[in-house]
């Protein structure tokens, strides 16, 4: 019995010691147990043994010399080898510290993994809009969530302000706005509505890519369900029907229809199984036949609702609250050295919600000698806000081309703005590859009017001028239904983006613009 206890206690020694002397130690114990009988000697024996353990166990570990056991130390030069340093099972202490270390690593990893999730929408929407510019550049991307907003316009009473598409911006993610929140943004004049009852739709969808949560889009792209021949035929026929019914140029619609049918007959689409790829091919064929970059076919992984519901007063209130909390996307309005006004605007928010804010921010810059609009992170928005801000830059009404609307009285800026002193001041606009949609509208017109100098990078190329039409559950298309007059050039910024006057990296654009402004001001 007592020998068993002592044998168990011997496990405290390093395995190397146990293997070498374990039997001797036990033998010695037996010798002493045999020789030292009686209560007191036995008590003394155990006292000795325990004291011995307390002293010699730590010393064994302290003096432990790693040696290679159990394997031959012969090995080839330069080859990796595995040595067993100690044969026994790990000590309890080692197991404990190993366990704690593992636990700490798991906790640290889970914290680390959970972090980027919060930043993700911002990042992906950034890359996405970049890929959008090069990849699927035209008017819109259809998302069911968006369709809900888009439908409002068709259902609202004439004369009521229409809340249409949403163009969100990366900064919205920063201020914690829920990416999926319905964020109607652009109010459109009622008359445009009357003549084109659906013209708001596309603007709703126009901003799909921007307002969309990035993950939905990513999912849509990566998990495209395969499509069969019947589906392809149905989509082509649906597209042709929509074109003939809605496209503003009926003769071109016929030309596109012929092209699509010819492609289908010659088997060009037979191998295409991926919905997104098929949509891209149709887009290309339509643009090739029409030379109209505003035509677009889109694919949505999520089913498109047949009868989109209008957005609710609640969603409008949510939008209003979110955009007001964000100071209407006016991130910064300040006077830089040399009296250069600097305005960082990350969206063109709803005029009806943000008119007062816009006026206040512009007033802060009213005495500036030059003004820099920083639209490098501007993800678009309400064309009326574009017109509102542009009005400050002219002393008389000026025509602004908008690919989304017929030319009307609203196509002229409401200049002069009372009390405004900026109408004759030099204007610089900072652009990047992210500058998007309504922001490109602002850039394009002010560049064409030679009212502003664009500094930075070529913009995204999102014109968003088509009206969205559902083809079936997963396919939709954008069709221009208006004939705006573009007095500046044959093509606008659809697909190609707006070229800057001074090409520099977006990161260097502010410095470059400040230098340009200073030079200009010194000459005066």
């Amino acid at each position, binding site marked *: 019995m007592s020998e068993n206890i002592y044998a168990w206690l011997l496990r405290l020694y390093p395995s190397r*010691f146990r293997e*070498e002397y374990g039997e001797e*130690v036990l033998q*010695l114990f037996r010798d002493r147990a045999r020789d030292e009988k009686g209560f007191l000697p036995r008590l003394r024996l155990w006292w000795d*043994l325990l004291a*011995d353990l307390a*002293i010699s166990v730590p*010393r*064994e570990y302290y003096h432990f010399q790693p040696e290679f056991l159990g394997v031959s130390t012969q090995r080839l030069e330069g080859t990796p080898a595995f040595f067993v340093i100690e044969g026994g099972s790990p000590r309890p202490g080692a197991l404990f510290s190993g366990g704690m270390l593992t636990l700490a690593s798991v906790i640290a990893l889970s914290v680390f993994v959970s972090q980027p999730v919060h930043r993700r929408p911002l990042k992906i929407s950034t890359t996405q809009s970049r890929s959008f510019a090069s990849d699927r550049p035209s008017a819109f991307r259809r998302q069911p969530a968006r369709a809900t907003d888009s439908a409002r316009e068709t259902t609202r009473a004439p004369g009521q302000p229409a809340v249409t598409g949403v163009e969100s911006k990366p900064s919205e993610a920063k201020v914690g706005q829920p990416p999926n929140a319905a964020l109607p943004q652009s109010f459109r004049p009622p008359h445009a509505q009357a003549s084109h009852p659906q013209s708001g739709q596309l603007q709703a969808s126009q901003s799909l890519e921007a307002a969309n949560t990035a993950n939905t889009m990513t999912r849509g792209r990566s998990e495209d369900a395969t499509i069969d021949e019947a589906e392809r035929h149905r989509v082509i026929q649906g597209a042709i029907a929509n074109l003939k019914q809605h496209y503003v140029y009926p003769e071109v619609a016929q030309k596109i229809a012929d092209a699509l049918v010819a492609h289908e007959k010659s088997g060009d689409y037979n191998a295409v199984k991926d919905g997104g790829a098929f949509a891209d091919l149709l887009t290309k064929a339509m643009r090739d036949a029409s030379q109209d970059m505003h035509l677009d076919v889109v694919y949505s992984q999520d089913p498109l609702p047949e009868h989109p519901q209008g957005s609710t007063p609640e969603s409008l209130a949510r939008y209003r609250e979110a955009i007001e909390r964000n100071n209407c996307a006016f991130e910064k309005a300040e006077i830089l050295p040399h009296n250069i006004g600097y305005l960082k605007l990350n969206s063109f928010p709803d005029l009806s919600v943000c008119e007062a804010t816009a006026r206040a921010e512009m007033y802060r810059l009213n005495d500036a000698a030059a003004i820099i609009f920083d639209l490098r992170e501007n993800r678009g928005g309400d064309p009326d806000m574009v017109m509102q801000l542009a009005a400050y830059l002219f002393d008389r009404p000026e025509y602004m081309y908008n690919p989304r609307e017929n030319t009307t009285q609203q196509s002229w800026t409401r200049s002069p703005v009372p009390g405004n002193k900026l109408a004759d001041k030099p204007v610089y606009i900072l652009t990047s590859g992210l500058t998007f949609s309504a922001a490109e509208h602002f850039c394009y017109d002010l560049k064409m009017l030679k009212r502003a100098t664009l500094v930075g990078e070529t913009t995204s190329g999102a014109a968003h001028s088509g009206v969205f039409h559902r083809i079936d559950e997963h396919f939709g298309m954008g069709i221009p239904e208006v004939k705006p007059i573009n007095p500046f050039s044959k093509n606008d910024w659809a697909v190609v983006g707006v070229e800057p006057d001074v090409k520099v990296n977006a990161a260097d654009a502010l410095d470059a613009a400040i230098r340009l402004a200073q030079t200009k001001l010194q000459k005066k």
Partner: protein
Amino acid sequence: MPKQKLNPLPSTAFQILLALVDEDLHGYGIMRQVANQTEGRMRLGPGTLYSSIQTLLEARLIEEVGQGVDGKLGQERRRYYRLTAAGRKLVRSEAERLADLLRVARAKKVLRGAHV
């Protein structure tokens, strides 16, 4: 490393070396011999004993001379240990060092009584 462990020579190691001066002994024999030569003041526990034996073996101050049976203790085979020449030399030098110390202690009249 073993040399460092033995410099200065721990009293346990010195007692073991001293115990082996007269004859080869197994572990339990060493233990009893040490107890005798210290008049029972030093009772080496098994861990301490074999740990020291291991150190002394590594330092080649003692060596294993094979296994044998101690008739007085039954039929179990035991490992016997013997002092090497180096071990014997070390015992002597250590004893001389202690003798020197003792001489100094005497000169300083640190020690009392006639038995020293």
